[in-house]
């Protein structure tokens, strides 16, 4: 009978662990949302932040977050997909492929602050750009690349062999098969993976501290000339993103309403990441339905 008691105790412990994990999540989310959402208003989202006075908003930070994400994806998606196609279709098993695989593994496991330091060294100091959106986007590209390559490679490999062979048997060249047969049918899983990766980039802060900087110049949203100093579209201007803003107001800020601003920002940040997750699932399931005709 002793082993039966031990079994019961162990089951109880496992259930307790599961409950702890669930409580943690529920606690964290309700804390973020309950505390944060009461500070989020239209005004909060659309007014510029303030360095000293209370009542600042997060307009520029929010825009910067999305803009940095956009530029990052503009660089990372083609690069990552190219790498994925190479790994899935062109790479022959051997030394070179092993080296590339190790490189991806190394990139994936580097702490983001180390990549931020590399960005500071290369994109900020060596190039002489200073803190720029482009530097931040390049640093985030390095962080993001391994996951896009991995998602892309898995997606391409899981395309049914018959499709590829049928295309090749019709006398279509390899590159054309990849372009017209393999990529379209791998598209849903790639899209889902890319949106999930975007959610992670959105909350990244450590790599941006030293590359995109802690400040934003005064922006004029009517100015759409990407080469103008005040234009929000200029990629050679410093940009504080939402995640960086939360950190900086808490550690170096002078404003009296630190808690309000940062809990509001945290809620916006978490909701955005949640939306990315939901969007990824939703788009994934819609496209799968359209393409495969399953219910």
């Amino acid at each position, binding site marked *: 009978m002793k082993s*039966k008691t*031990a*079994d019961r105790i*162990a*089951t109880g412990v*496992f*259930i307790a*662990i*599961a409950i702890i*994990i*669930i409580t943690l999540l529920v606690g*964290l989310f309700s*804390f973020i949302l309950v505390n944060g959402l009461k500070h989020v208003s239209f005004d909060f989202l659309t007014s510029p932040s303030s360095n000293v006075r209370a009542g600042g908003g997060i307009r520029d930070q929010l825009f910067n977050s999305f803009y940095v994400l956009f530029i990052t994806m503009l660089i990372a998606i*083609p*690069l990552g997909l*190219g790498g994925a196609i*190479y*790994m899935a*279709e*062109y790479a022959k098993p051997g030394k070179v492929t092993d080296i*590339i695989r190790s*490189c991806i593994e*190394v*990139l994936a496991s*580097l*702490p983001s*602050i*180390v990549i931020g*330091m*590399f960005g*500071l*060294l290369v994109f900020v100091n060596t190039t002489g750009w200073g803190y720029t959106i482009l530097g931040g986007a390049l640093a985030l590209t*390095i962080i993001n*690349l391994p996951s896009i*390559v991995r998602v892309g490679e898995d997606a391409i490999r899981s395309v049914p062999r018959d499709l590829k062979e049928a295309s090749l048997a*019709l006398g*279509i*060249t390899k*590159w*054309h098969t990849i*372009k017209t047969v393999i990529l379209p049918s791998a598209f849903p899983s790639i899209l889902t993976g890319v949106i999930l990766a975007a*959610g992670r980039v*959105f*909350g*990244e*802060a*450590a790599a941006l*501290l030293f590359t995109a900087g802690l400040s934003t110049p005064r922006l004029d949203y009517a100015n759409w000339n990407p080469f103008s100093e005040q234009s929000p579209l200029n990629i050679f201007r410093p940009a504080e993103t939402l*995640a960086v803003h*939360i*950190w900086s107001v*808490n550690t170096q800020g002078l404003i009296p309403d630190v*808690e309000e601003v940062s*809990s509001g920002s*945290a809620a916006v*940040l*978490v909701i955005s*990441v*949640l939306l990315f*997750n939901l969007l990824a699932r939703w788009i994934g399931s819609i496209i799968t339905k359209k393409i495969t005709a399953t219910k």
Partner: protein
Amino acid sequence: MGKIIPAKERLLKSEKNWMDGELRGKILVIICAVIMISATISITIFLGTKGLQSFIKNGVSLIEFLTSTQWNPTNKANPEYGAFPFIFGSFAVTFLSAIVAAPLGIGGAIFMTEIAPSWGRKILQPVVELLVGIPSVVYGFIGLTVLVPFVRGHVGGLGFSLLSGVIVLSIMILPTITTATDAMSALPKNLREGSYALGATRWQTIRKVLIPAALPSLLTAVVLGMARAFGEALAVQMVIGNVRDLPSNLLDASATLTTIITLNMGHTTYGSVENNTLWSMGLILLVMSFVFILLIRYLSSRRKM
């Protein structure tokens, strides 16, 4: 979706000079692969040379840097560069948070695969995915506003402490450990059935059969979590207190390599000795992430046997 073009037309529409497109495509993807290799190599080389500068150019003693507990770089007459308290802090938070998070993470994975495979997985899986999605600054902010006052009021000390850092990191690496333990469900079914057929209880099966069989994968998961903890910067920086002394107990404020880098990189002049020692700390982070990769490689080679 627009107009649907039949595959026949799409495929026949290829350029006349098809060999060109073929070559161009191949070159394109090879360039992408080369960029990935060169990014990795240049990170290693750039950070390596920059990190070694404080020892080669500024004459900081490597032994002093790694073992001395005196960190006083701003002292003009006798600057001291002992980074041991930070190295110790990094390892302390990493190991302690792994000790806290490993049983919880692995327990969660076992709950999902063994205790309640149907509904447990349906609830816990999304929970774990959502936990991964919370950005690290948000963890830091919650740590700062909830955990630090709680520790100050109920446990003692200032609140900014090694303990707060460990708790924040444990929560952060918990999902890493749980997701990676999917390997539990990949174990062959007959292991379980064989054990049950011998009359073993579920706990005996888990303890004597399943955990030993999945051990390399479980350790890999824990190492992945430790790698994440070692490199985490902002969340820890916000709760750990950032002092230059060696902590004597869990409630003392402390500092880690990452927190000192985040804190001082902006304040120090680029190229000064103090700044260069920060790059040396970055180099330690880089080297440690290589060590973690080698550890994972070693564990997964054992898994294949």
